[in-house]
């Protein structure tokens, strides 16, 4: 799980830099809205990038508890773990 969190962090940094043209540092404690200045489109780009890379689904409900970069990376890791254990949360649509 810790490895997946690290991988998700790296992917968030890549998406921020390459797809969202964000030039600053991306730290685990950074607030997605306040520090990364993500708007609705930016959040969608980030979610889609993570879904594609890790083959998981991230729902609106999931997003409720997500505020920081680390929150998001942990959510991805949770979904990856759920998929590995065969739960429906990570199943392909």
């Amino acid at each position: 799980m810790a490895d997946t969190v690290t991988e998700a962090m790296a992917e968030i940094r890549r998406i921020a830099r390459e797809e969202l043209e964000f030039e600053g540092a991306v730290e685990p404690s950074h607030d997605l809205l306040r520090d990364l200045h993500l708007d609705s489109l930016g959040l969608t780009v980030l979610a889609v990038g993570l879904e594609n890379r890790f083959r998981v689904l991230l729902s609106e409900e999931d997003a409720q508890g997500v505020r920081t970069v680390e929150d998001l990376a942990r959510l991805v890791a949770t979904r990856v773990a759920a998929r590995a254990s065969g739960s429906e949360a990570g199943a392909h649509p």
Partner: protein
Amino acid sequence: MLSTTRHDTTPSPSLSAVGRALPPHYASQDQLIGALRDLWATKHFNLERLEDLHRNVQVGGRHLALPLEEYPALATFQQRNDAWIRVATDLSETVARQALERAGLTPKDVDHVFFVTVTGIATPSVDARLVNRMGLREDVKRTPIFGLGCVAGAAGLARASDYLRAFPKQTALLIATELCSLTLQREDLSIPNIIASGLFGDGAACVVLRGAEASGATGPRVVGSRSVFYPDTERVMGWDVVDTGFKVVLSAKVPQLVKDHIRGNVDGFLAEHGLTRKDVRHWVAHTGGPKVLEGFESALELEAGALERSWKSLRQVGNLSSASVLFVLGETLEEAGAKPGDWGVVMAMGPGFCAEMVLVRW
């Protein structure tokens, strides 16, 4: 930052007629999603999310320059642009002839053609091709304008009006022709491109503008206009020009820019003419998308239904870039039941990022 054209003492040109045309090929949003779904699946995992993005723009369907099945074969910029020149010229001729007929004029009456687009390029430009096709005069002046994007409908009205103040006996055409579907980068599976492919449609409009001293000029008068440029917003909207054509740059900051600025911009513009928002009976807004229209409504505190023509146009044909606001203008001229003395504001925003407002009086 602000540039206002006031003409309290100079005669105002009139908007005599608006022609509109859509290509004959129509695809509903579900048909378009069906056509794109397999393509999306080559990269994306959560296709339902992408379908929701397509549906959230509240467009029911789009008219397309070509039959849907012909798009996959358009692999290169040359192929897309060749199709653009062919269809754009046809559609431009249709709307120009329609507008002139509605104004009771002939091609020989035209002194100046302003042609705006952001979806294809041609040299000689489309307006030049229309001179040959329509039999415009040999001394007709032409101003092709590329790159203003969605704002070009309103900005074109303003620039053509500026011209007619200098030459008040003359007649100008403003032609806005946009074939957004031919800019679609199939290989660009980015979210902005997927949203753009759900929002933008194809169409053309032509406005006949006549100087204040042109014989028989009718229609509402263009009293003034204002351009507004928002500094350091170049990445909010535009094209990245790539080997395969125009790759869309689209930021979600557009609705926020509307909310942050348009109220102050409109109030300042109207105040220069001794007016307030309550004096304006007809709002003609570019159909940028649901969030842009909601931004206009909330920032300007408009009454329910004030932008109904824009909403209806968005639902029926999507965002036609520069042609959109002219479609809404045409509907307003023909259906709004405007009375002499009524004020109207035409407004649009586009790459720069910038806005253009045009004050009209019936």
